[in-house]
């Protein structure tokens, strides 16, 4: 399988602090790829650099051989790179269905003239169809008319992924998807990710908690202090002395 996302010599500096410093790694098509590291390792910054939230100070990100770093976020999204956010970032005041409809925005581009003339029914029906498909996929079809803000935590996280899914990503970037979840919700979420991969979507997830994603990922990239620490299969990572030290050392500092 080929690499679809290539991060090369990526760097981001905030004032004098190098949050990400010369990071390079690649994500293979169809993989679930984990990006882990202790707190403050620069994972979320990397994520923000890939999704266009920040502009890199140096280096680049290529997606299907096309440079996407430096593009604005919605342009990156239009290339098929869709991200989710930490915590439950949703349109809390809109219904579950409307949340996902916003996600279909790119497939069914709204037209002003159609809106003026009230000629939107067809494309809207298609968008709703697509939204319902996605909601079914995530097991949310029972909640379509509920406000997103009223859902349980686990359902909110699923809805966050549903919104991203509705935009038909080629690669889905998930930012700490397991944070704040109980074991049962974690299990469901892991099942969902497996299902997503089976539909042909590549997944890149950032996670602080290493154990949660060991069983899930095909490959794992470990960061520390903004740099690449190591990369490999879960088993290799688990036993890698540098990784153990990075995590243990961090724990020592914390205590």
């Amino acid at each position, binding site marked *: 399988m080929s690499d679809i996302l290539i991060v090369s010599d990526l760097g981001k500096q905030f004032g004098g602090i190098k949050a990400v410093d010369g990071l390079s790694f690649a994500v293979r098509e169809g993989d679930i790829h984990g990006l882990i590291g202790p707190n403050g390792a620069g994972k979320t910054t990397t994520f923000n650099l890939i999704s266009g939230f920040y502009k890199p100070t140096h280096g680049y990100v290529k997606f299907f051989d096309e440079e996407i770093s430096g593009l604005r976020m919605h342009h990156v999204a239009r290339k098929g790179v869709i991200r989710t956010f930490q915590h439950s970032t949703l349109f809390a005041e809109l219904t579950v269905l409307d949340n996902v409809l916003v996600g279909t*925005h790119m497939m069914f581009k709204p037209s002003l003239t159609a809106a003026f003339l009230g000629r939107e029914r067809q494309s809207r029906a298609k968008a709703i169809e697509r939204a319902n498909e996605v909601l079914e996929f995530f097991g949310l079809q029972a909640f379509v008319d509920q406000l997103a803000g009223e859902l349980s935590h686990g359902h909110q996280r699923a809805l966050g992924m549903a919104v991203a899914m509705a935009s038909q990503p080629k690669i889905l970037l998930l930012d700490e998807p397991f944070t704040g979840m109980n074991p049962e919700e974690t299990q469901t979420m892991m099942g969902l990710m497996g299902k997503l991969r089976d539909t042909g979507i590549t997944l890149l997830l950032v996670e602080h908690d290493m154990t949660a994603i060991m069983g899930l990922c095909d490959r794992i990239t470990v960061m520390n202090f903004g740099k690449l620490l190591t990369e490999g299969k879960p088993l290799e990572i688990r036993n890698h002395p540098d990784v153990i030290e990075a995590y243990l050392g961090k724990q020592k500092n914390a205590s």
Partner: protein
Amino acid sequence: MSKPQPLILLSFLLLAVVLIVLPHGLSYSQREILVFLTINILVVSSYRLLTLTGEWSLGHIVMMGVGAYGSALYTKELGVPVPISMILGALTAGIIAWGLSFPLFRMKGFYFLIGSFAAGEIIRLLWKRFRDPFGGPKGIKRIDPFPDIDFGFVRIDFFDPVNYYYFALIIVILCLVILWRIEKSMIGLTFHAVHWQDKLAESTGVNVRAYRTLALVISATFAGLAGTLLAHYIGTVNPNVFDIEQMVFVLTWAIVGGTTTIYGPIIGCIILTALNEIVLREIGLEQGRPLVYGLILIASVLFMPKGLEDVVKKVIELMKQHVFRGRIKDV
């Protein structure tokens, strides 16, 4: 949902009859007020479209002025026929708003509010400063009225407030239908999305800046149209017609009525105008308009932050429950 269809139809019919009959029961000056009220409904409704994206502007009234000045100048200086100049005036407001969107949408929230205020004041001061072509502080006078329409058997004279009211009413209703459709469309949904979580919207491929700009341009265009309706009725415009005090009135209508529904600002506008023109005029306290408006503004922010529309919503729910008792599960 489909059950109360005949009821809704009936109430629309009733509303239409009321709107048609209304001016005939009024005095001449009240008819004039009715014309202004109709125009103001368009101003406040177009303002609401912008607030859907979460931004509150203090320059909206100046956009109305751009339409009014534009249409007046196109007829006076270029000899453009009035109906066409009105459309051009509205478009001018849209274009100016588009131009202003570049600096203004680098700001958000309070900064946008202040920025829009500054931009509006600059435009207003330009009208005041440059006698040619804007007429300086005294503005533009003797603007062509809307031309009479002669059907042969009947001649419609738009100097008559009743006729102009019908004309304005038709235009305003048309605009409201368009505004309503925009809101109910996918574009309207995206406006809401931009309001509540702009980063999330952006991450799904929504060009947030473009949608903000779109809302600003549409709202300014309709405000501009309202301005042209005003200009060709009163026949004169000057910078003070579009000053911050007028803007505060628009703000008050929107806040008192509420902005989550399309009817909220309209209710606010009608009720406050009625209060002003009927109650204050009757007791001879017209001078007290700012006093009353100010107190109402404070009171509604403090005690009724959801606006009058919330009261209407509850009444509708109550009526539904009454009519279809048992069939509606809960609110």
